[in-house]
């Protein structure tokens, strides 16, 4: 057979396959049923109205911050599945044996979610999840996407998610309680002058010990607790060199408890010229409180106690 004939056949094949595919889509595609008015309607962080006909009974939570909010609102019985990052909380809470571990969100398919028959899926509003979110919604699954980045937005998320799961009153109570606790700290720390603020070095557990820069939530917490972050001249997270830490001479060091570095390792590394080492002011903080979740208030209160022991008992 001549090459031209083969080429011609292949062109025809391409056209046939393409038209068949198009035909298949239009004949079999299910239209997403949205726009049904429900008794619960909340705008998520995409600005999209999530409509539910009633309080959800089968929630899939794809983010530890969201799982924590739902558990704090006493709705853990409504959660049927959670992602890997939520499992630390699920395993440390009683009565959660039936919650399925869905592992990493990036590996999930819509079918896995459909198999759980959920009436609400809560997920982070990351760009890389946008296809997944769209696909879930096309399959008729109600999805709420949130992206809290700091203390203010976390309170907003608690409010919205609480209303979405039918616990509006509890959520509002939780938010005002958290606001009260935050205000209790702020009223004492807001007017502390720069010179009276302890210099703080914060180290996270990831990548061998990253610190936080300006604009991060941890930096905000340090400021709110009445301290000053020695690395607030940078942005985001990076691994600070020992030299620069020694040069900035922090008064207090806060290290994530999950870090493999012990306090003694830190002291040996930094040397006694650093005020935090000689004054033995190294505090370990639970990493789960440094996330955009309700426990962030705990982190704030702990830091306030460490930075200003005379002001906070």
């Amino acid at each position: 057979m001549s090459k031209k004939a083969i080429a011609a056949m292949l062109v025809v094949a391409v056209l046939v396959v393409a038209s068949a595919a198009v035909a298949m889509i239009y004949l079999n595609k299910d239209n997403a049923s949205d726009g049904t008015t429900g008794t619960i309607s909340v705008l998520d962080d995409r600005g999209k109205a999530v409509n539910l006909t009633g309080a959800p009974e089968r929630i899939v939570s794809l983010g530890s911050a969201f799982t924590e909010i739902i558990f704090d609102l006493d709705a853990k019985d409504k959660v049927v599945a959670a992602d890997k990052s939520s499992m630390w909380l699920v395993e440390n809470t009683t009565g959660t044996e039936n919650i399925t571990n869905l592992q990493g969100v990036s590996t999930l398919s819509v079918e896995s979610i459909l198999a759980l028959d959920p009436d609400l899926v809560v997920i982070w509003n990351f760009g890389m999840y946008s296809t997944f979110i769209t696909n879930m919604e096309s399959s008729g699954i109600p999805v709420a996407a949130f992206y809290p980045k700091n203390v203010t937005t976390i309170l907003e998320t608690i409010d919205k998610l609480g209303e979405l799961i039918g616990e509006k009153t509890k959520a509002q109570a939780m938010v005002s309680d958290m606001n009260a606790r935050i205000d209790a700290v702020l009223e004492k720390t807001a007017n502390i002058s720069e010179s009276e603020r302890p210099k703080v070095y914060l180290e996270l557990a990831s990548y061998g010990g990253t610190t936080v820069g300006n604009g991060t939530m941890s930096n905000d917490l340090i400021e709110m607790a009445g301290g000053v972050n020695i690395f607030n001249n940078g942005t985001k997270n990076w691994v600070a060199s020992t030299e620069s830490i020694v040069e900035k001479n922090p008064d207090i060091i806060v290290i994530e408890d999950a870090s493999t570095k012990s306090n003694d390792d830190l002291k040996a590394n930094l040397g006694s010229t650093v005020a935090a080492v000689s004054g033995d002011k190294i505090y370990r903080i639970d990493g789960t409180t440094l996330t955009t979740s309700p426990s962030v208030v705990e982190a704030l209160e702990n830091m306030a106690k460490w930075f200003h022991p005379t002001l906070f008992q």
Partner: protein
Amino acid sequence: MAAEDIAELQRAKYKRWSLIIVFMVLALFAAIIICLSIGVVSIPFDQVISILMGGGSDRDRHIIFNLRLPRVLLGVIVGASLAVAGATMQGLFRNPMASPSVIGISAGAAFGASLALVLGVSWVSGAFAIPAMAFLFAFITLFLVYAVSRDRRGYVPVETLLLAGIAIGALFNALVSALQYFAGDKLSGVVFWLMGGLNNATWDQILISIPAVILGCAVIMMLSRDLNAIMVGEEQAGNLGINVNQIRMVLLLAASLVTAIAVSVAGTIGFVGLIIPHVLRILVGPDHRVLLPASIIGGALFMVATDTLARTIIAPAELPVGIITSLLGAPFFIYLLMSRKKSMGW
């Protein structure tokens, strides 16, 4: 041997090849139907058949036609692309350890996709930005590799091409690591994308990839005879009147096209392009006129099977399919190295 005897043997050979291909195609169809009925949501086999005929409940129809079918078909496309590109690379470089990623375009595509993820690019539309950037960078890589390895006359020696591919691939891999470091909260997305997966397959992806993949596979298959000659040796091929440099460029372009598409929609899935051509070489022989179509179908079969495993083995959670292909592929690769030491010849 008399001329008729040779012709007779040839006819027998072509007949054998045709039977093999037909058998493989039928096996692929059967595998597709079987894999359509396997999944987290249990839909019995007879239900699946009735759904394919037009019946079944709305929910089940939705699952089969909008969730499983695109995923299975994407597996066919990706598996076929990677396998045929692997076979082509192994022939072009006359090296059994060559794979689609040997000239660095997988690394380039990975960088493009990671860049899109980290920047949160949405100028096209979030969903298309990632594959589009992956595809773009795959071709930027190909261009760079070509530019670096060509000599003044435009001739590209195979050894230089290989080295350039390794170097530029390493460069892009380093850039991906750098991106991972700075990615912050978008980090896990980059890591999982790199592991590869078909879990968010949509009909759009299939529509976009099918024409280019068919084109690429067609071009490669049309040049089977030339690839046979090139595998014997470049001088010999040149003596047969083949413009080796030009054919090599066309084959490289076609193999890169299908690889770029595969990596853009499914991430970097390792070892498919490496193992499948070898397995088929053992089964059907090294003649590219049968090896290439067999690789296409064999690659498709392998991908569909491993993806079905990936989405059922820890259900309802899913394993990244790249983990399964690597776990199967790495021991096979070691076996290949060891048998090559015994100069089995290939």
